[in-house]
């Protein structure tokens, strides 16, 4: 700070006060108490036994936990490599100059974000039914070799969830990409076209570099959100589903904490997830810093 400060010292804290106070009360305090909880086995006040790191040790040897990790990773990969590219594709199409009905398309693609999860789950239960579902009926029409009974919600739970979340979130992420595309310098695009560059070339060398930072941000948000997947499969499958194929890390946390009442174990699961995500965020920051320098 070379320039003299020209605002009172209290000014930033005045603006930060609501966040800092509420964060302290409703976030930091519960978080810290959950550290203590993760080192106990508890059945309410007066019935707590300190067990040290046993909850963590048990967790590492718990096959269900690893199933949850596998499923969550699969879903996250689906969000990253299926949903985001589709969202980007829609945004690129909508961004074409002289497109008619742009506002309508935008509204349509965004509209699933307006509906509550309860309804989405009810709806996809109907759509994905192995025999009577809309999806299988539609697939059989366009591709007659498609098996009459395709058990989405029995065997292909994660692909089914990726489909449902594609419907729900692709439009939202599309808006992020659309926003990013507004910042692309159109004169550069025109110049490249004049030089005879094809659409792929323009995208690769002009558009992508401009939207890469936003894409990184969207990807990070998407990973954080995906790693916390819980309500959609919980309502859609009414629990972990067959062979725990719909079990996610946060669902396992919820089951242990609120169905079994094992709050200590649940807290341990939460902390393992949180530590993993913190590590991930640090790695992303480091990578970004490297890319900038």
């Amino acid at each position: 700070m070379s320039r003299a400060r020209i605002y009172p010292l209290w000014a930033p804290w005045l603006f930060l006060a609501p966040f800092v106070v509420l964060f302290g009360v409703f976030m930091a305090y519960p978080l810290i108490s959950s550290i203590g909880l993760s080192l106990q086995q508890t059945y309410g006040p007066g019935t707590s036994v300190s067990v040290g790191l046993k909850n963590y040790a048990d967790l590492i040897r718990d096959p269900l936990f690893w199933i949850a990790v596998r499923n969550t990773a699969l879903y996250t990969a689906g969000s990253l490599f299926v949903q985001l590219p589709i969202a980007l594709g829609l945004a690129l199409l909508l961004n074409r100059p002289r497109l008619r009905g742009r506002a309508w398309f935008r509204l349509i693609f965004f509209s699933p974000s307006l509906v509550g999860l309860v309804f989405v789950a009810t709806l996809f239960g109907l759509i994905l039914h192995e025999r009577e579902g809309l999806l299988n009926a539609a697939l059989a029409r366009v591709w007659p070799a498609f098996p009459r009974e395709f058990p989405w919600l029995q065997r292909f739970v994660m692909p089914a969830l990726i489909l449902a979340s594609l419907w729900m979130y692709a439009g939202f992420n599309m808006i992020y990409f659309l926003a990013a595309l507004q910042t692309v310098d159109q004169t550069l695009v025109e110049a490249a076209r004049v030089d005879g560059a094809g659409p792929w070339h323009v995208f690769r060398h002009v558009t992508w570099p401009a939207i890469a930072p936003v894409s990184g941000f969207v990807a990070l948000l998407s990973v954080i959100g995906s790693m916390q997947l819980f309500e959609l499969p919980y309502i859609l499958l009414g629990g972990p589903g067959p062979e725990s194929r719909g079990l996610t890390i946060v669902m396992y946390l919820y089951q242990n904490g609120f169905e079994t009442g094992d709050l200590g174990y649940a807290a341990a699961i939460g902390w393992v997830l949180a530590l993993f995500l913190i590590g991930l965020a640090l790695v992303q920051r480091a990578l970004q810093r490297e890319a900038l320098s």
Partner: protein
Amino acid sequence: MKTRSQLASAATYLILAGAALLTLAPFAYLVCGAFKTRDAFFAAHFLPRGSGPLGIDWNGLTLEHLARLFTDPSLRFGVSLLNSVFYASVSSVLATLCAAMGGYALARFAFRGRGFVTALVLGALIVPAPLLLAPTYALIHRLGLLDTFAGLIVPGLAPAFGVYLFRQAIRNAVPTDLLEAARMDGCGEVRLFFEIVLPLCRPMLGAFLLITFIGAWNNFIGPQIILQSPERFPLAVAIAQVKGVYGTDYGLLMAGTLVSIVPVMALFIGLQREFIAGLTSGAVKG
């Protein structure tokens, strides 16, 4: 060359129309379901087929579900609609204000502890919400906020995500020089915030307002835990309760969902421009 671009544009429309159709099909299901009678509900995916005009069995359609929403007092639909409007507007307005204030402080002030608070914001983004459920509920009880809208709204007023978005947006949209010039002219800090900073990040205000409004509008687990009296329950809870234990009146469920989408849809159409501009300003790396 001309034909090639025409072809590309036709393909664009084709793909967009196809995607739009896929996006809308579930909504069509919803709208059809809201008007089908109990008997006809499971008979067809969309409209009941029959011998009536247009090949539709018009006797399988009814307005009864919509009418029942507003006339059956045991559903408490009217009260819960009001509750939802109140809860979602108050919490989205206050949360947006808090987020804007926090983001402004982090974006445009240099002070000891800024790095630490920024790290807190980023850290808070990644805390899994269920980890906090049990301790938060006990806390709200100890603070005497159970069964109050305050207990429902206050814990959500420090949205780390919002602080982060506003920090980015203000870095992009509010020039430091402008702030310093205003201070030279003797503008107080609070006035500066409300008269210069807020108007400049108006798009982000709209975007974040919409995001938090949708979140609050569709929240159905939180209210049932914090609020104890059914006369305070919002619409999402009233609709979730239609999904009964011994059987679901699907038509009623669909009608309730349909009506509940209308306000957020209207808000989105109204704020569409801000929404996109806002996310632009928040997402771009500053």
